[in-house]
């Protein structure tokens, strides 16, 4: 496929954009990455995602596809022969993967994101606890899913799949959260299964070149906080 036929509009710190990049890498799709400028939002962004005006937007043959998990499924559908399947083959396994990916987006990510802006120590502690509980649920899910087969490497089996991508894309920001809160969320003691999975995920060929470095994300987070802090 000619490179110009596939464009991804995104921004390097975004975990949602990362999902799309990993999916495209899994399928060996040649694409052009367009870094969104913001302030103001580009014409391309406003035109291709008029409803939400958010990244990522995948533009394939001039048609836009929005929402990161929808993009991942689209990539899996269109480039089915380009690489291993992203969604599991069995409908029940797919339902489990979708359930947990939805959980990550609806519960885990919002809680994690809110920690930085928490009003007061009590709220901060509550949100950190929520994230810890979410990670415990995912640790449990990981153990259940990987105990089914012989390949205990990823949620997707011996290859990274839908849930690996949905959850793994948050690892950089989870690490930033650990640093800024001083709380170990993710380690051999609390979440041994996930701790090992995280290492394998970040080392995976489809992930390692596109996963932003934690120290860069931390710098970026600090710049954001400075911009948002009251004068």
């Amino acid at each position, binding site marked *: 496929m000619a490179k110009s036929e596939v464009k991804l509009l995104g921004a390097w710190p975004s975990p949602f954009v990362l999902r799309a990049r990993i999916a495209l890498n899994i399928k060996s799709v040649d694409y052009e990455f367009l870094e969104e400028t913001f302030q103001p939002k580009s014409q391309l962004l406003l035109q291709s995602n008029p*409803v939400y005006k958010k990244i990522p937007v995948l533009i*394939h043959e001039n048609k836009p596809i929005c*929402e990161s998990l*929808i993009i991942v499924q*689209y990539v899996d559908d269109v480039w089915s022969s380009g690489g291993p399947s992203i969604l599991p083959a069995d409908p*029940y396994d*797919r*339902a489990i993967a979708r359930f947990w990916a*939805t959980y990550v987006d609806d519960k885990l990510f919002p809680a994690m994101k809110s920690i930085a802006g928490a009003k007061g120590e009590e709220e901060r502690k509550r949100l950190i606890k929520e994230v810890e509980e979410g990670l415990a*649920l995912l640790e449990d899910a990981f153990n259940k899913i990987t105990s089914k087969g012989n390949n205990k490497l990823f949620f997707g089996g011996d290859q990274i799949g839908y849930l690996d991508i949905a959850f793994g894309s948050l690892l950089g920001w989870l690490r930033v959260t650990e640093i800024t809160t001083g709380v170990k969320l993710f380690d051999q003691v609390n979440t041994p299964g996930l701790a090992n999975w995280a290492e394998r995920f970040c080392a995976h060929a489809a992930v390692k070149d596109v996963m932003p470095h934690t120290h860069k994300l931390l710098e970026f987070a600090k710049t954001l906080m400075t911009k948002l802090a009251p004068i």
Partner: protein
Amino acid sequence: MAKNDEVIMLDFWLSPYARRVQIALEEKGIKYEIKEEDLPNNKSTLLLQLNPVYKKVPVLIHNGKPICESLVVLEYIDEVWNHKSPSLLPSDPYHRAQARFWADYVDKKIYDNAMKFFKTEGEEKEDGKKGLIEGLKVMEEQVGGDRTYFGGDNIGLVDVILVPLFSWFYVYKFTNNLNFVSQESFPNLFAWAKKCTERDSVSKCIPKEQKVFEHFQQRNLLNSDQ
């Protein structure tokens, strides 16, 4: 699929999310059994076991295995019973992506705001109302003309997801002032809702007005100006 497929749905008759699943099962002609939950205060052990994360209905139990979250359930039903029409999702990848996009939009923009409007007070309620109107205006543009349904010529994922809320509008007219959701302001949506409720599957699943009225009456939730 095996002839002795066992399909059970943990349900609460008033839940629009559960109605989505029931409509899909009816549309595809799948045999199922309903286990009614006594919500909100008396959740069954089964519900707590099968949906420990959210403790909510609907839960589909297929041959003993639970599936939770209505959108996940709908895709599951469409995949497992893909030989039964209608297909909830189109076969073309781009159109599938579009259907999923709008399904997600209906959930986030319309349902979440509707729940805010119905269940909160003051500023939050106003926020919900504002968001709901914005969302309905967007959906109004997506249907009508040669688009009988959001799915095109036949009922699809977005139709199944949105229609239970429309019946909730008449349900909640007993407790809220809903004059901003009218045929005049949303002619396409009202025509679409009427078309949907003419289908056996949908009319069978929508709660009867009398039952709803009595439910709110019992809980002293009726509008003071009823």
